[in-house]
């Protein structure tokens, strides 16, 4: 029977789990190798039956959030549909050591995210830049974003257990690993960061610490 996989947790301790998930399907748990995995088994054998995509994704998110509120989770990407339970148990067996290590390390941690982006183009950029001017402008944009990212990192340092950055064109995403109990203090510290008018920052979280599952 196919199954939609939600997330993995440590198997110790009771958890309050939503009764239903995507498409109103029951959320069930499956234990293997000391790990607990939450799934919805689909009795119709058609894993893609369900509500419109956005509602399905949000229902998936609600299941994750309810479990994540109580403990550390390693989520599956939506929609991860396995052809049968053996495929899932095989995956858990194969990666049990890695998941145990990560869930233990991240047990009391959450991920906060800071998205930094330029607001429009820089005023000093010429209308029709040459290739060299374009590259120079991009370099300046990136340097500006990295400087602000550094300010955020410094501001939140006292509450952080890890920091990662992902640079894309015109924006940077920063991931901070923060103790569950320190989110409010962390956010307050970030609000004190001085920002240039050309850059906007959006702080979101707490999220499951997906960027820190691997220690690399």
């Amino acid at each position, binding site marked *: 029977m196919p199954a939609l996989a939600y997330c993995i947790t440590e198997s110790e301790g009771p958890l309050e789990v939503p009764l239903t998930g995507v498409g109103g399907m029951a959320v069930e748990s499956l234990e293997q190798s000391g790990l607990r995995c939450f799934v919805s088994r689909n009795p119709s054998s058609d894993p893609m039956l369900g509500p419109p995509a956005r509602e399905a994704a949000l229902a998936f998110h609600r299941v*994750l959030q309810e479990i994540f509120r109580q403990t550390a989770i*390693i989520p599956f*990407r939506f929609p991860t549909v396995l052809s049968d339970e053996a495929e899932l148990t095989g*995956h858990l067996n194969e990666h049990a050591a890695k998941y145990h290590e990560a869930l233990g390390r991240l047990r009391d941690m959450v991920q906060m995210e800071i998205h930094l982006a330029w607001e429009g183009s820089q005023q000093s950029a010429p209308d029709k830049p040459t290739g060299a001017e374009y590259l120079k402008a991009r370099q300046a944009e990136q340097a500006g974003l990295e400087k602000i990212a550094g300010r955020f990192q410094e501001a939140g340092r006292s509450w952080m257990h890890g920091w990662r950055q992902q640079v894309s064109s015109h924006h940077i995403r920063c991931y901070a690993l923060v103790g569950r109990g320190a989110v409010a203090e962390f956010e307050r510290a970030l609000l004190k*960061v001085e920002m240039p008018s050309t850059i906007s920052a*959006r702080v979101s979280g707490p999220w499951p610490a997906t960027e820190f599952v691997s220690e690399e």
Partner: protein
Amino acid sequence: MPSAASKILLSAEAAGDEGSLLDVLDHVLNKGVIIHGNLIISLAGVDLIYLGLDAILTSVETALQHVPFQALPTARKQ
């Protein structure tokens, strides 16, 4: 010249807006475990495309932006 901290938006302040929704969708679609494997995408019982699971997840993410969930093709392990 530095501006006020109003340029920093906390997700709690933005709860319920389009940005928060995009954050949520971005997370469920782009963050988390990928199970590696090979799949054949079938539609109406006809095998259409053979793909690695990484590729199909990317494909589904894109598809989710444009088509209703129930309209997506089924997938089964080879």
